């Protein structure tokens, strides 16, 4: 039933002359282009783009879309990514012309509604984090990490301190060390205990006056709350360091505990996770950060401030690190975040977290009997199972399990992360899934553990393509059409 023709590459579907002129005739006096622009600046030909009619473009992309799994079609328990339901009302409202059609350089008097919205966003995040200084500028979580580390660097520079080290647990997400490196820091890894928590001895051993920042994820990437977090932050503060919280897992703790209250000095949010911004097949996200009052002066410029009843962009921030991107930020994502927070209110956010944790623990309790979950009998909003026993006993790897799930109509969990669990399957159900869905997922997972291993090695069988040859892809990269 699939339409194979329409999903050829755009370039294969192209036929010279089939794209109709799309724009109106020119309504001002026209002059030859050669009179208006110098010859040296002009290309001799038009860019060699494909030529397609509108119906062909539509059919191409609609058919392509159907080759995807997505939250709107499938349970998508991709750990660390918080693939919750993306409310349709937020999409509708974010596309109101009064919000979507604003130019970033409009006079402030013509965007008071937008500035108020963003001002409120700042206030909401300050309240949820317990950290009063907020910048909405970063474009994604990793960008927020980098921004916050630059803030930390500016803070130390301002104090005349030279600190070059960023510490992070070995369970940290890859963006943490990468951000630290980009910000000019040296990365030192701190080990985890058998329970999956930060090893306090190892931390202590690494703490000295060189340490600028400890980056910590809490709940951590194993889905566990660092019970010693107060102790950890105290230890870091004692050597004059700052604690950065990777807020990717805020979905577990909204209204329950606040990073500022447990000692974090800086953090980022992932509105595309916690606050239901759609993931867009790989973005856009946003990465607003929140910091303590002491760090606030160093935040990127501008921030939204309120003078009387007028809102404006404050660019007069002499200690600011400057900008980390053009214009204001990924505003469209922030508008959706704003809608999400307003929809939920304090009670709703807390209940969302409670249910995220309930769903995860329920899954954990049902999965544990047949699939090992190395650390922790309880979890927060996600947990990390391991296929290592399955692999040892039946030769079935985490990857095989993932592919088997695709065949059964479920997206796979995150696999092989965090790195400290072998054959990791990181499962995050989110609160917007029903018990019925979780039960069906458990059933599928269980069946997989009993499935003929060869069937799983060959899986998936029901997807539009079977396993791609990734080695070939990387050895002789073909990164655009028509190359080979």
């Amino acid at each position: 039933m699939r339409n194979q023709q329409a999903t050829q590459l755009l370039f294969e579907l192209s036929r010279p002359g089939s794209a109709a002129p799309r724009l109106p005739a020119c309504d001002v006096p026209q002059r030859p282009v050669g009179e208006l622009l110098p010859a040296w600046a002009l290309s001799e030909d038009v860019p060699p783009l494909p030529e397609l009619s509108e119906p062909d473009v539509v059919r191409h992309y609609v058919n392509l879309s159907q080759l995807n799994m997505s939250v709107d079609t499938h349970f998508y328990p991709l750990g660390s990514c918080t693939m919750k339901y993306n409310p349709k009302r937020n999409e509708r409202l974010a596309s109101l012309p009064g919000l979507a059609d604003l130019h970033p350089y409009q006079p402030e008097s013509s965007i008071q509604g937008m500035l108020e919205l963003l001002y409120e966003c700042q206030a909401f995040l300050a309240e949820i984090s317990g950290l009063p200084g907020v910048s909405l500028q970063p474009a994604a979580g990793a960008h927020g990490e980098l921004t916050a580390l630059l803030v930390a660097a500016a803070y130390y520079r301002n104090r005349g301190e030279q600190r070059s080290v960023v510490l992070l647990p070995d369970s940290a997400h890859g963006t943490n060390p990468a951000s630290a490196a980009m910000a000019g820091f040296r990365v030192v890894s701190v080990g985890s205990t058998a329970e999956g928590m930060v090893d306090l001895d190892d931390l202590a051993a690494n703490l000295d006056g060189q340490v600028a920042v400890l980056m910590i994820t809490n709940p951590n990437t194993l889905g566990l709350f660092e019970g010693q977090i107060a102790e950890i932050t105290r230890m870091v503060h004692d050597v004059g360091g700052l604690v950065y919280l990777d807020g990717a897992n805020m979905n577990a703790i909204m209204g329950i505990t606040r990073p500022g209250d447990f000692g974090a000095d800086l953090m980022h949010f992932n509105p595309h996770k916690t606050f239901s911004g759609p993931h867009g097949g790989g973005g856009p996200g946003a990465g607003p950060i929140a910091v303590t009052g002491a760090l606030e002066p160093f935040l990127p410029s501008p921030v939204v401030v309120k003078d009387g009843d007028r809102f404006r962009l404050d660019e007069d921030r002499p200690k600011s690190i400057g900008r980390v991107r053009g214009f204001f930020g990924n505003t469209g994502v922030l508008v959706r975040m704003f809608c999400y927070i307003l929809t939920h209110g304090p009670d709703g956010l807390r209940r969302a977290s409670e249910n995220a944790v309930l769903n995860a623990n329920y899954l954990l309790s049902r999965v544990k009997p047949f699939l090992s979950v190395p650390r922790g009998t309880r979890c927060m909003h996600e947990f990390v199972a391991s296929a290592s026993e399955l692999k040892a006993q039946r030769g079935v790897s985490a990857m095989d399990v993932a592919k088997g799930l695709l065949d059964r109509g479920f997206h796979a969990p995150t696999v092989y992360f965090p790195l400290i669990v072998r054959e990791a399957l990181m499962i995050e159900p989110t609160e917007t899934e029903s018990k019925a869905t979780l039960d069906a997922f458990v059933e599928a997972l269980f069946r997989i553990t009993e499935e003929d291993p060869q069937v799983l090695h060959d899986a998936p069988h029901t997807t539009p393509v079977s396993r791609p040859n990734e080695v070939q892809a990387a050895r002789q990269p073909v990164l655009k059409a028509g190359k080979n």
Partner: protein
Amino acid sequence: MPYLPNTISDQQAMLDAIGVSSTDELFAMIPDALRLKRPLDLPPGMGELELTRHMTALAARNLPAGQSAGFLGGGSYDHFIPAVVDVIASRSEFYTAYTPYQPEASQGTLQAMFEYQTLITQLTGMDVSNASMYDGASAAVEAVLMALSATRRKRVAVARSVHPETRQVLETYLTNLDVAIDLVDVPEGAVVPDDAQRAVTEQTACLLVQQPNFFGCLEPMDELSRIAHAQGALLVTVVDPISLGLLKRPGEYGADLVAAEGQSLGCPMGFGGPYLGILACSEKFVRRMPGRLVGETTDRRGKRCYVLTLQTREQHIRREKATSNICTNQGLLALRASVYLALMGPQGMRQVAELCLQKTRYALEQLTAGGVLKPAFNRPVLKEFTLRAAGENAAKVVEKALAEGMLVGPSLGRWYPELDGCLLVAVTEKRTRDDIDRLASLLA
């Protein structure tokens, strides 16, 4: 709560299965002392109807530039977005999926990204494009970082006619990296090759230029390319994708790295974001590319398919040694740009560029006819130009237009003290002769 499917009895059954008596018990891991003992201080929750009212009221307090006679420029433009772009980008299967970690269940996203990469190479004339960066400014900065690492040099020459915000971002990123920036002045609205010659030395990793530049003027790219390459420096250009319907493609004048703000390609102005960072390079830099790359390969049955590839560049594999920290990027905007380009085709891109050109020229003439406003520079422009307000200051011009529901600017004083009294005017294909005439009769 609107998005929680579990009923009270479901919740109870789940608690029973877990073996706890309340949800609260599940949070036992969190020490009591760290718990928030009060509700968050946020407005109470709203139903969809109330939220709709609230958001509509906020929206009503903004003047949508896209619906008024908007002549605002400076890197974000009011180009027409065909309905098809919105339709495709709002397909659930595209916008509610994530990074295609499971290629077998993500061929839609993967193929669309692969096509995007191809379209960008066609548009820019470069060898390779990645699957998107955050925005034009950060893409430009990442291009500079690539140049720094590729050349192992420690200086960057930057034209002052590059978007001031791009330059600010560059400064921010470079602060702790022990790299020096050499600014190339632009006395006449564009780089004078001799100035560039002086700024680019054997220590220069790259020369960063924007075409058309922030003032709307064209830069002498051929010459700048020669100057950079003569010193072994790379040429990094920031381009306006719409301009490539007419102007030389960066690949044609030897650019090594190309960044662009892709907003013009079917993305709403959205008060500055989410936008699309375009980043393309020559083949030889591919392994220094930040971000996602999609490659073609075959599946087990020999069927052509697509995967994320060269992942050893990326943070999740290489961690602190990665080419960048970028993870979530701007996939949906890249999709929008692809659909836009697929609809426009070569002729459409040429047409939109030429409409901008003709209307811009007409607007420039009309606006300067009265003598109140003067062109700030005497250089060829494509879709945007800089005006100097004689006597009056630029902010007043902006206010005057606004009073009639028209939008012009930004004014340049805040970035270029010497251009206080100057402002930008951009004219896209959406503006009619009537819009232009109205603006001219008001301001000229």
